[in-house]
């Protein structure tokens, strides 16, 4: 056994460690399978998908359009504030601010803005635009950093600053930036649909109700429409039409209800404060008693909600990560025409498209019927969605890799010739995805898995804004710490920086 030690390389070790950690997490996580009789419900679901009812949903076209329009305006808003920040992203304070904004899931932002703006389109657009803007700032900054500086050096003497910047720098990054914006627009469509779960008038509004109430014919139709919407982006989202869409989106927004200034003020100055501070009028009233009850409050929250929530969040995310690794490796293998031939690989390709388009929520719902209400359904849902996405991106690379003339087209040939070439990239994508998985656990919290999202949702539904905000802070902190650690590990071990921009490879998928 020890003889083979020198042959175990960096990636084997990383993979082994990942699975070891995941196995440990799996042991501690709640993964009990409890479901005695899922079949009658599953039969109803299957019937729904066999005979989808496209006419059961009221105002369906409006919902479709609002899904697009929220996504579009969200991305535009994100660009408006994120793109300029990219220029000063090297400032530590700006970077920190963006990291915090980014680390909070759209759905939490929406829950927060819901308290301020109510059921207003502003809520939805801000909820998408804020985290997206922060992501844009970082990714654009990364892209700008990597752009060649030679053009600026060769420009004619006396060229003015503006022309220098646009011809010398911006023109270099325009193509990758446009590709990234296209990719984020696809993400925004998903986010926009998800915001329907909490009341925005998008597809998700009806999708969630239909599945929750067991109207599977309607739910299936909505899901099919949603996948079709994402699958056909390249057909209806022509660059020339975008300006028209934006103007149309602005004009067809649902009416913006007025915001009562006094209530907004009360929200900021009172409702979000911990109970101990709520009824104070002057600073001088802060005494030992107040401090005591403040520390009790935060201690209770930490012990009863924040820590258990963090542990569940981490367990869930880590196991999902390892499972996603499995899905990605197997999926990439099966979908590679180097291994399985044209027919099978294109079938698997289609599967991967469906898997990555269906919101995790729907998978979790299905698995919950099959396996019972433990963490297992959420793990599987996250693993399938993210694994399929990584597999998809990896296959695009593996289809262009050069194989040796002796390549035999069998699994052993694949493992010798293709896998070593695509593996580093696959792992890079996987680790980048971890940040995303961690954020996505939020949705499962709202579905009832006791992650941090669960407690935040409870805080909002019990109208305890202070606890909700406190826990949102904890979520942001957790995400930032995990992000820093994983970045350090990756840089230390591979000397490469994982950039979100890698994902923009997806943009040309459609």
């Amino acid at each position, binding site marked *: 056994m020890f003889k083979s030690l020198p042959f175990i390389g960096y990636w084997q070790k990383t993979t082994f460690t990942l699975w070891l950690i995941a196995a440990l997490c799996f042991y501690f996580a709640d993964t009990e399978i409890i479901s005695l009789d899922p079949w009658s419900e599953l039969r109803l679901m299957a019937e729904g998908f066999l005979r989808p009812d496209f006419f059961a949903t009221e105002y369906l076209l409006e919902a479709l359009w609002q899904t697009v329009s929220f996504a579009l305006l969200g991305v535009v808003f994100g660009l408006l504030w994120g793109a300029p920040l990219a220029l000063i992203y090297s400032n530590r304070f700006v970077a920190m601010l963006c990291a915090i904004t980014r680390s909070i899931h759209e759905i939490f932002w929406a829950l927060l803005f819901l308290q301020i703006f109510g059921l207003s389109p502003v809520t939805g657009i801000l909820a998408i635009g804020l985290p997206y803007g922060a992501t844009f700032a970082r990714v654009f900054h990364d892209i700008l950093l990597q752009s060649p500086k*030679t053009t*600026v050096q060769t420009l*004619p*003497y006396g*060229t003015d*600053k*503006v*022309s220098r910047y*646009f011809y010398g720098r911006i023109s*270099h990054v325009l193509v990758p930036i446009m590709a990234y914006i296209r990719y984020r627009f696809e993400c925004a469509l998903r986010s926009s649909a998800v915001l329907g779960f909490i009341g925005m008038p998008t597809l998700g509004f009806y999708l969630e109700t239909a599945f929750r109430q067991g109207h599977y014919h309607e739910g299936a139709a909505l899901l099919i429409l949603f996948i079709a919407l994402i699958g056909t982006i390249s057909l209806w989202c022509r660059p020339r039409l975008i300006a028209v869409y934006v103007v149309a989106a602005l004009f067809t927004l649902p009416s913006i209800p007025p915001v009562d200034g006094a209530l907004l003020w009360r929200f900021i100055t009172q409702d979000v404060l911990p109970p101990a501070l709520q009824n104070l009028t002057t600073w001088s009233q802060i005494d030992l008693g107040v401090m005591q009850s403040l520390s009790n409050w935060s201690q209770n929250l930490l012990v009863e909600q924040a820590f258990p929530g963090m542990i569940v969040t981490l367990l869930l995310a880590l196991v999902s990560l390892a499972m996603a690794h499995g899905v990605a490796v197997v999926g990439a293998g099966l979908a590679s025409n180097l291994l399985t031939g044209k027919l099978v690989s294109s079938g698997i390709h289609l599967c991967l498209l469906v898997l990555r388009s269906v919101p995790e929520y729907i998978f979790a719902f299905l698995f919950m019927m099959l396996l019972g209400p433990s963490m297992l359904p959420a793990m599987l849902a996250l693993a399938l969605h993210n694994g399929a996405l990584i597999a998809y991106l990896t296959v695009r690379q593996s289809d262009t890799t050069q194989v040796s003339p002796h390549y035999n087209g069998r699994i052993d040939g694949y493992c010798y010739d293709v896998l070593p070439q695509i593996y580093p990239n696959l792992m890079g994508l996987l680790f980048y995805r971890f940040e995303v998985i961690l954020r996505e656990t939020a949705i499962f919290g709202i579905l009832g898995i006791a992650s941090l999202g669960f407690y935040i949702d409870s805080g909002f539904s019990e109208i305890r804004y202070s606890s909700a905000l406190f826990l949102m802070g904890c979520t942001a902190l957790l995400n930032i710490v995990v992000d820093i650690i994983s970045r350090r590990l990756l840089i230390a071990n591979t000397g490469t920086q994982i950039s979100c921009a890698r994902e923009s490879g997806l943009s040309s998928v459609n």
Partner: protein
Amino acid sequence: MLKFENLTLKYEDKLAIRQLSLSIKAGEKLAIIGTSGAGKSTLLSHLYQCLKSEAAYSSQKQGLVEGLSTYHNVFMGALARHHWSYNLFNLVSPFKQPLAEVTQLCQELELDFPVSKKLSELSGGQRQRVALARALYQSKDIFIGDEPFSALDPLMSRRLLDMVFERHNTVIMVLHDKSLALEHFDRIIGLKQGQLHLDARQDELTSEMVDDFYCDIPLTAASHVLAVSDV
């Protein structure tokens, strides 16, 4: 026009040019030869720094922009001639006059495809000519070129060199192809390890002198030079 005494230059913290004295007169056609790492590019970029306002510079790093069209890449030579708002508008929708000029120039450079073609679709030789076109489009008095023909065949190199001569009063060029240098330039200087080892007028220079200049170079470097000039 330009004169140095005991010039010393650094390139990435290493001495590239040592105590070099040189004077260049207006109207001269000057070729610089030498092996890789002799300090040619460093000298050239220094010359450009001194002559900036009157010179067009075609660098070895072509500085082309992949995402832009051929037209825009060439137009960048004229950035200094226009107001920034003109330049920005042109980035979105090309103006007629520069478009006609650039199309004409590209045809002369034997770039026989629409100027709207994206740079990323061009071959190595085509790119080099686009970079050259950008330098020509600057319409300056002096041309400073750092191996502007390295990716082209010898016949085309000669044709293009004539174009460069036609349009510029003074030409300073680093060349690998020594026969090109011997046949067309009035004056040839040779650099070796940052120092001037050869400086002769064309009529006083022979092929042997050039061979002598290259001969005490380590074998590997010399073979590299030959390989390149064979292209």
